[in-house]
């Protein structure tokens, strides 16, 4: 690796920026096809009802209307599938009810798709939708976990008694019970992980087309994983073979997990385009996005930690109830299980860990992955509990963590994962130093002099990223492999196209992957283009989520480049009349070892395509594809510190400082990595201090727009202190771990621990997320009687 100005490790400015900065990005809603019609999705206004009947005649007669389709029209088309089968403790499979794309007989949440109205213009479709007469026969709704599990609760699905989807466990219960029997101390905690709305700033959109000449469907859609949509939509919903279904995810304006799932609207639009023989376009309005984009989190947990007399962790027992919403979205079932329960060792040597999770159906928007997906929930619980243990045992918050750190690698946790590498002391030390932890008491006194309460909080964490080894996840119920593909095409003139099955929607893959390839091949950075987001161009892919793109997709590209080099050596050997074993490749040149005889990659590429003088038996062309299936998860880790100042009169929490000390493995582009950390931190701070999706008891969304769902704004956040200590991942050639979710995993407990630290002098010892001003004010009032 040359390490030049655009190579691995350089903060190269992004290739994608010029188009975004000049308004030339091409997002789904920017695309228009000749002859297109507009679809409007009519959504259920009630949380739970039988559909007595639907009269579409008035809507059909409205100006410009071409069609109105309801669930009955789509009957017989496959339902929306889910991607992960979970088994309960007793070995039984989860309850997996049908999910018709358009509601059939019943609606199960406010926002459920009831009909599509297709018209000449967007406004005509929307106005005609008001004329669809649906006979909703209201049923009692369950809008929360508490309501779903109550005696006599309404049933979201008849086949799911008690609204339970599964009752799952991981870890050794007997060993954990034994640990508690021998414990000197037991510390318990109850926590709620607040439900969030993802809110990528680009609303979802789609445009579907059917070409009768080729019988091929094309769907442009706001997706993080176009091939996954093709798999689910083609194989499970519409029954289309891959070569007749093209999915294009062009520029996508943020995802954060909410653009992973295959959504009903994608199926409805594609099917409708086939029925009408014309392109159909749909763009979600924000107000509908709140009630149709999958939500995140929504757990209620109770946990206890067993410790010996010195504060060493002996056992951890976690009991969680998770809300899955009204239907099982693509990754809904694995988020509160395999992305959650297996995280509970954290960075600690706790020898016995047991976690049980019961997941419920409710009359709410389906819940799926959201930045961090399961790992923020686990980290929040664990780091709140560790802080509470320190407080109850009278130990220092830092020392109790240090006392329990894993220091020998590889480390086999009691909950399935094997950590390959890490240095938790190093990131802790770095964070303490960068946050001036030692100087905090002086700052607390300074705030107190101004009538403010200052607090500092810490969280030390690991995450499991780089999703995922296919055999492992397959044995746990995943219905797809989670490898990635990469192709590298060296053109005859020496420029390079890189094709990746991951998808960039803000992460800067077009830059990072080009850095890797240009560095490895010694070609100019500007001569490398990265292509993503089109199933017709890219061999295969599983997309971008779970901080997997670089660790899995980047490795696939790395391996494809190695294949290119390997083939190039054969061609070069022929040109240089040397044996292949003697050919070395460095900085874009193939050289006969120990000589000055060399040829360039460009010459080799030209020869590959104009093979007049060419090795016998070797195929022409210089293009290679690699599929990489990771050997293990990757384990980014770090320490986050938050410092807050509370106004005791109003309860307002001001976040005054945020420090991250992270080990994300090798950093390809420090500028991009810092940006990913910033964004994750803001997302996590949003969860800790501002964001909360609230349902009324009747299943109406109380926080259904930006008027009442608080998004973090510039003035809500401080500058972030970002620091790195790197240990390399041992099982991928780049040594990379992943960074996209770090902030949202690590920071929420640090913020809440800081708020509690600030309020302890007033007698407040607990705080729920989000720590809004009202919640803080109430806690203060309650503590003061």
């Amino acid at each position, binding site marked *: 690796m040359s390490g030049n100005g655009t190579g691995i490790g350089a903060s190269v400015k992004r290739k994608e920026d010029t188009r975004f900065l000049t308004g030339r990005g091409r997002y789904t809603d920017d695309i228009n096809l000749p002859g297109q019609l507009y679809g409007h999705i009519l959504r259920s206004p009630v949380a739970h009802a039988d559909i007595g009947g639907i009269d579409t005649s008035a809507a059909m007669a409205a100006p410009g209307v071409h069609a109105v389709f309801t669930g009955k029209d789509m009957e017989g088309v496959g339902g929306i599938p889910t991607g992960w089968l979970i088994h309960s403790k007793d070995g039984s499979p989860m309850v997996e009810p049908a999910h018709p794309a358009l509601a059939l007989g019943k609606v199960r949440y406010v926002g459920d798709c009831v009909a599509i109205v297709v018209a000449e213009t967007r406004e005509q479709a929307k106005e005609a939708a008001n004329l669809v007469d649906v006979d909703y026969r209201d049923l009692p709704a369950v809008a929360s976990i508490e309501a779903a599990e109550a005696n006599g609760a309404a049933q979201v699905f008849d086949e799911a008694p008690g609204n339970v989807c599964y009752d799952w466990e991981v870890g050794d219960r007997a060993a954990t019970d034994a640990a508690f029997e021998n414990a000197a101390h037991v510390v318990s905690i109850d926590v709620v992980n607040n439900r969030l709305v993802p809110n990528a700033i680009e609303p979802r959109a789609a445009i579907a087309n059917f070409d009768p000449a080729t019988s091929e469907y094309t769907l442009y859609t706001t997706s993080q994983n176009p091939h996954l949509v093709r798999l689910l939509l083609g194989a499970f919903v519409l029954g289309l073979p891959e070569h007749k279904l093209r999915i294009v995810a062009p520029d996508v304006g943020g995802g954060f997990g909410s653009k992973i799932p295959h959504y009903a609207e994608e199926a409805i639009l594609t099917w409708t385009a086939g029925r009408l023989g014309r392109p159909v376009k749909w763009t979600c309005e924000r107000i509908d996005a709140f009630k149709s984009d999958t939500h995140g989190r929504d757990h209620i947990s109770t946990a206890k930690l067993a410790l010996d007399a010195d504060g060493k962790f002996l056992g951890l027992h976690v009991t969680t109830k998770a809300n899955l919403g009204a239907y099982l979205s693509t990754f809904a079932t694995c988020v509160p299980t395999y992305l959650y329960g297996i995280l509970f060792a954290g960075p600690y040597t706790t020898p016995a860990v047991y976690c049980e999770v019961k997941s419920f159906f409710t009359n709410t928007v389906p819940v799926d992955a959201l930045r961090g997906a399961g790992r923020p929930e686990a980290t929040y619980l664990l780091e709140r509990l560790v802080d509470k243990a320190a407080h109850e045992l009278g130990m220092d918050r830092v020392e109790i963590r240090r006392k329990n750190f894993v220091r020998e690698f590889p480390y086999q946790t009691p909950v399935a994962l094997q950590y390959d590498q890490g240095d938790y002391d190093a990131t802790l030390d770095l964070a303490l130093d960068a946050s001036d932890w030692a100087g905090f008491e002086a700052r607390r006194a300074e705030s107190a002099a101004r009538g403010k309460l200052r607090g500092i909080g810490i969280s030390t964490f690991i995450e499991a990223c780089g999703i995922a080894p296919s055999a492992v996840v397959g044995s746990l119920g995943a219905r797809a492999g989670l490898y990635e593909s990469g192709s590298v095409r060296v053109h005859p003139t020496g420029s390079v196209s890189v094709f990746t099955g991951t998808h960039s929607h803000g992460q800067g893959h077009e830059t990072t992957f080009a850095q890797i390839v240009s560095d490895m091949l010694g070609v100019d950075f500007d001569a490398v283009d990265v292509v993503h987001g089109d199933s017709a161009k890219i061999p295969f892919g599983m997309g971008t989520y779970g901080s997997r793109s670089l660790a899995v997709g980047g490795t696939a590209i790395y391996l494809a480049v190695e294949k290119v080099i390997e083939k190039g050596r054969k061609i070069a050997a022929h040109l240089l009349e040397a044996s292949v074993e003697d050919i070395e490749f460095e900085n874009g040149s193939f050289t006969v070892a120990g000589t000055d005889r060399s040829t360039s990659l460009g010459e080799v590429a030209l020869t590959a395509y104009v093979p007049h003088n060419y090795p016998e038996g070797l195929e022409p062309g210089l293009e290679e594809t690699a599929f990489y299936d990771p050997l293990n998860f990757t384990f980014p880790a770090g320490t986050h510190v938050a410092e807050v100042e509370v106004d005791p009169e109003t309860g307002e929490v001001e976040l005054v400082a945020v420090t991250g000390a992270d080990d994300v493995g090798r950093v390809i582009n420090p500028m991009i990595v810092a940006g990913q950390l910033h964004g994750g931190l803001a997302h996590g701070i949003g969860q800790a201090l501002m964001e909360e999706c609230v349902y009324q008891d009747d299943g109406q969304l109380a926080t259904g727009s930006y*008027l009442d769902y608080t998004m973090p704004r510039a003035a809500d956040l401080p500058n972030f202190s970002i620091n790195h200590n790197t240990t390399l991942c041992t099982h991928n050639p780049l040594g990379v771990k992943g960074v996209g979710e770090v902030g949202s995993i690590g920071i929420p407990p640090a913020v809440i621990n800081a708020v509690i630290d600030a309020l302890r002098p007033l007698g407040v010892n607990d705080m729920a997320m989000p720590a809004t001003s009202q919640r803080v004010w109430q806690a203060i009032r309650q503590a003061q009687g």
Partner: protein
Amino acid sequence: MNDFTYHAPTTLNEALAALGAEGAKVIAGGHSLLPVMKLNLAAPTDLVSLAGVPGLADIADGGDSVTVGAMCTHAQVAGSAIVQARIPALTAMADGIGDAQVRNAGTIGGSVAHNDPAADYPAACVALGATIVTDRREIHSDDFFQGMFMTPLEDDEVITAVRFPVPSRASYAKFANPASKYAIAGVMVAQGPAGVRVAVTGASGDGVFRVGEMEAALGESFSAEAVAGIAVSSDGMLSDTAAGAQYRAHLVAVMAKRAVAACG
């Protein structure tokens, strides 16, 4: 949004004529009206723009009062040297409305006519004892703000200006909804020719209201300590996900105290 006929009159008389149509409404900056029209909560058949009517966007110093034209944007008020010199509390209030783009387009006339219970201007008008000037009459703010979204304006009546008496001192303290940035509790305190006034927006379901007990206490002694002990009842307070009635009542008291303290 339902469609409508758009009128762009160039004189006030033309505007008034166009407003004669059943279902017609005035549009100023559109920042109160268009959002409710998008939600189909209003569906006027005709929109009559005042943008082309001359003389409605001036700010004039009348000695003991400042007159702000109805079409003045919040940014214009916030940036006015006259307002800054005579009623700095109004400058600060206008500078805290919505966000920069809202302030660039939203107008005082539109805000006052809409009488949103969480808007800032009603508190300023009532505390300062402003007069709402229309094409046909002058209405004192005490008579103008009649509860949530309710005013005495006729369907075809046009606000042309708002006249603020210059106070000897005034200040506005707002606790904003963290999501919408509208007021949860916005308190304007003013001492002027009409005595001390404490007007509250954002908190009550009935819109802007005055706190008599605080006004009396401040009349005795204009100091933060004078209002510090005065609790505000939570009866009739709004309650939503951001702030329940009790919290709102508490915030009114805190904002009042801070506004008084900021008066200096």
